[in-house]
């Protein structure tokens, strides 16, 4: 059987310009991955290839790197939410035994400013021989601040009389408007129009490994170990900052303790580490403290959404109006999706703004803007269903243009027993503990690209695959082993894989649920074409065409006559002394973007204490072709739970009187723990013909909205403000009782 070939278009860089060319690759069937049912690895569960290192403590994260002569860096941060530094004096700090370098605002105005706009802004840094001395040195820097008026609350900051966060512009930025149709005409058609406001809080990322780097200079060459979601983004920023070629900077991320969207680029702390390492003439490790993480490394912006929704009496949505704002802190955007979330509404108008406050800047966080949008939309959908006397599932099915999502809603409803176990009327249980059920949905983009890889097949049969992606805990390294092993008919431990290093071929950052869809087609394409080169060389030995050869189970044989066979090593020995080397890139046809997701949730509400417990989540997700179901399920679990954390517990609390975050730790900033974990049933909605689609983000989006709806179903209290803490539940219950 001759291997079928197909032509694909790829984009290459020529003289710095993107250029589309056509290449020929083996046609491996629908979705690019063909019939995966007989695969040994791809689409089958595989334990993590680096798991032994992780369970034995051998895995070395950036925080664990130790180099000879290593110094410890710390950053001095503004003590005030808004202040001007009149004088800063490090004389006492420099006099301390063990302090090797101090950098002050004047050393690098591109990094430090004398204008402090949030409590926690970087103003100086030290490097010392021990972490303890570094901490002492921070306290021995004398700062003379001129304290200025500030504002940390997004509602207060909208008042034109409020303190101005930036001198040159208003706190509330320009409106961004999205519209379609005619909303006045739309609302005129509506039989029922509802209006409500929903409020989402600021959420910290809390990757367990804090932001940080280890920086080592040799002349004008810099080696960096970074806790990052994008080694190349760190390299680019550092090379740019220090005016050296990118080839002079090497960034390494072997193990990485979580990112969730806030670890792209070198960031201030990375630049500061390199700066002070240069000044000290010694390698420096600068890992932030937990408190610094909360104050200065990013967060999910808040969202306050005023929503008006109109529907006909049979449940068709006809008009939607939303005005929303949120705070990104001192910089960035608090925008959320700019069209009605999920549902088809012919007439809509959305107007949104970002409001600066004197608080740490936002950063992308797992599905930026989506959980906020989903919470308000999915809450409002249930409110509308009740006003119209419709089932919440039915009103969704009626207005959802996405067929896959409609199928997934039906799957989840069936699984959880929506029609049989859920009371259509809210608050029907007896006793103080009431139970209820709710639903929420999402969409996410994802998609892949921007990844190169290289593969070497040595004459002794050893195979090496390199790709400058990074494994941030999602299992990327394992995917690379699996795909290469599948292609060569070898075992996963027979492939040597290098990732997490800018010395390897370029790959983009791990974010936006794009990593699997970016890396796997690049690995598939590169190994497939490397294998084809091998077959081109050895086919004459078999007396067949290259496309008739198959590599499987450690052998290479003729597909129509498996008795014509060589072991893999015998086959590669035909190469003589010259290895096969192939540099490939991401290919179209192996991945896709755009996925729906649906969560059904069961809760118990203690109507006396207001405590809510999420008992069960049915999570229905669609990743096209799932490469590794074991690690995929972990991603879904993690997404579901991070969504519960956002909906139920987490909240950055800023004190409006002092401008400080009052819970910049892990006890007052409440995270969920083992006793809060519900039962999670994961349902797969497979579409392997679409190829690989990411899962990290869709899995977290629908949870808060589904919980709010379940709380209402349980006890009749509609909670429109996250997190759903007992005080809010009790207030809402009291409001219901008062009628």
């Amino acid at each position, binding site marked *: 059987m001759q291997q079928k070939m197909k032509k694909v278009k790829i984009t290459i860089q020529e003289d710095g310009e993107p250029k589309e060319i056509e290449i020929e690759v083996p046609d491996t069937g629908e979705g690019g991955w063909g019939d995966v049912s007989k695969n040994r690895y791809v689409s089958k569960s595989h334990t993590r290839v680096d798991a032994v290192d992780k*369970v034995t*403590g051998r895995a070395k994260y950036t925080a664990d790197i130790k180099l000879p002569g290593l110094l410890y860096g710390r950053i001095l941060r503004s003590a005030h939410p808004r202040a001007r530094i009149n004088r800063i004096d490090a004389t006492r700090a420099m006099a301390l035994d063990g302090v090797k370098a101090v950098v002050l605002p004047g050393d690098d105005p591109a990094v430090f400013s004398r204008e402090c706009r949030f*409590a926690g802004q970087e103003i100086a840094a030290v490097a010392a021989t021990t972490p303890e001395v570094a901490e002492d040195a921070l306290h021995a820097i004398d700062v003379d601040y001129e304290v200025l008026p500030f504002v940390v609350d997004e509602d207060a900051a909208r008042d034109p009389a409020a303190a101005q966060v930036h001198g040159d512009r208003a706190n509330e930025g320009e409106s961004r408007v999205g519209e379609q149709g005619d909303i006045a005409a739309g609302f005129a058609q509506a039989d029922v129009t509802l209006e409500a406001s929903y409020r989402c809080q600021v959420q910290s990322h809390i990757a367990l490994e804090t932001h940080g780097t280890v920086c080592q200079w040799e002349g004008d060459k810099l080696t960096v170990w970074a806790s990052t979601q994008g080694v190349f983004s760190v390299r680019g920023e550092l090379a740019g900052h220090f005016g050296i070629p990118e080839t002079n900077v090497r960034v390494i991320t072997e193990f990485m303790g979580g990112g969730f969207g806030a670890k792209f680029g070198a960031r201030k702390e990375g630049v500061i580490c390199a700066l002070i390492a240069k000044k000290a003439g010694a390698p420096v490790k600068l890992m932030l403290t937990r408190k610094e993480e909360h104050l200065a490394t990013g967060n999910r912006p808040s969202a306050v959404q005023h929503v008006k929704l109109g529907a006909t009496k049979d449940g068709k949505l006809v008009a939607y109006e939303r005005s929303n704002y949120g705070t990104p802190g001192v910089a960035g955007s608090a925008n959320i999706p700019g069209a009605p979330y999920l549902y088809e509404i012919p007439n809509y108008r959305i107007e949104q703004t970002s409001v600066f406050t004197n608080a740490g800047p936002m950063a992308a966080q797992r599905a930026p803007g989506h959980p906020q949008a989903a919470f308000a939309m999915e809450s409002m959908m249930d409110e509308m269903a009740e006003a119209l006397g419709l089932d919440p599932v039915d009103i969704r099915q009626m207005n959802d243009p996405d067929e896959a999502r409609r199928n997934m809603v039906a799957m989840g409803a069936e699984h959880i027993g929506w029609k049989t176990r859920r009371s259509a009327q809210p608050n029907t249980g007896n006793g103080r503990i009431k139970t209820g059920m709710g639903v929420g949905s999402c969409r996410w983009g994802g998609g892949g690209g921007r990844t190169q890889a290289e593969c070497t097949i040595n004459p002794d049969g050893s195979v090496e695959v390199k790709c400058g992606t990074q494994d941030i805990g999602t299992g990327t390294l394992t995917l690379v082993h699996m795909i290469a092993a599948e292609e060569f008919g070898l075992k996963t431990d027979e492939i040597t894989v290098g990732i997490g290093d800018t010395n390897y071929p370029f790959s983009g950052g791990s974010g936006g649920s794009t990593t699997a869809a970016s890396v796997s087609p690049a690995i598939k394409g590169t190994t497939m074409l490397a294998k084809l080169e091998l077959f081109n060389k050895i086919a004459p030995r078999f007396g067949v065409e290259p496309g008739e050869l198959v590599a499987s189970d450690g052998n290479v044989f003729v597909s129509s006559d498996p008795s014509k066979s060589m072991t893999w090593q015998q086959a590669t020995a035909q190469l003589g002394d010259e290895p096969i080397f192939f540099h490939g890139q991401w290919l179209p046809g192996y991945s896709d973007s755009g996925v729906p997701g649906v969560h059904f949730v069961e809760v118990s509400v203690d109507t006396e204490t207001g405590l809510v417990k999420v008992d069960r989540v049915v999570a229905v997700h669609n990743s096209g072709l799932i490469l590794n179901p074991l690690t995929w399920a972990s991603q879904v679990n993690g997404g579901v739970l991070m969504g519960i954390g956002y909906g139920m517990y987490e909240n950055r609390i800023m004190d409006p009187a002092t401008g400080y975050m009052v819970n910049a730790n892990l006890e007052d900033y409440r995270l969920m723990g083992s006793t809060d974990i519900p039962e999670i049933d994961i349902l797969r909605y497979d579409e392997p013909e679409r190829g690989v689609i990411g899962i990290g983000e869709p899995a977290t989006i629908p949870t808060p909205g589904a919980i709010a709806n379940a709380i209402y179903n349980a006890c009749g209290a509609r909670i429109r403000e996250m997190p759903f803490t007992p005080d809010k539940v009790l207030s809402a219950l009291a409001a219901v009782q008062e009628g």
Partner: protein
Amino acid sequence: MADRHDEARPDESSQSKNKTGTRFTRRGFLKGAGAGAVTAAVAPAILVSEAGKAAAQETEGVMSATVTLDVNGQSHNVEVEARTTLADALRDRLEITGPKVVCDRGECGACTVAMDGKLVFSCMTLAMDAQGRKIETVEGLADGDNLHPLQEAFIEKDALMCGFCTPGFLMSSKALLDANGDPTPEEVREGLSGNICRCGTYPHVFEAVTSAAEKMRKGG
């Protein structure tokens, strides 16, 4: 928690108000509170002045000493300051980096180690107080190349993602199974309630602990 005095606000630079360097730091506080302040659940009012005094001394010269730590059956001499935590001594001085520092105040369990068979947060334990105790870290869990059944189960059930919390979860899981070889699901959750995982792999951790317990009961 007594250590709240430490960081009521971002005052690393509060020297503008206080030129003597007097401030409350957690480490200063521990030093003031003295030996045995493992989780420091003590009345803060009395100790604030102690902490203040201790902190004031920080910048005037620090006391250091060489202590002997028995870690995973091996004896190590290590120079530490009075305020150096066990976590920092293990990680920065001895390069035993399995225990991780995540919250640095006894809330997340990532730094969990066993000391004389009892779990402690190594970020809340002074290195000097660990002298003469048997310290076990995740590095000591396997018997040479033979993984502990819990380690095998964590791998098999994918009870780890980024892996940063994993050493702490493994130490807590081992203590749980050492005390109770057949825990109920509720007991597993209770036993792990001192550990935080941000990737959210708890369901797989519960499966792993239950599966390892079963295997260990069968003599595996």
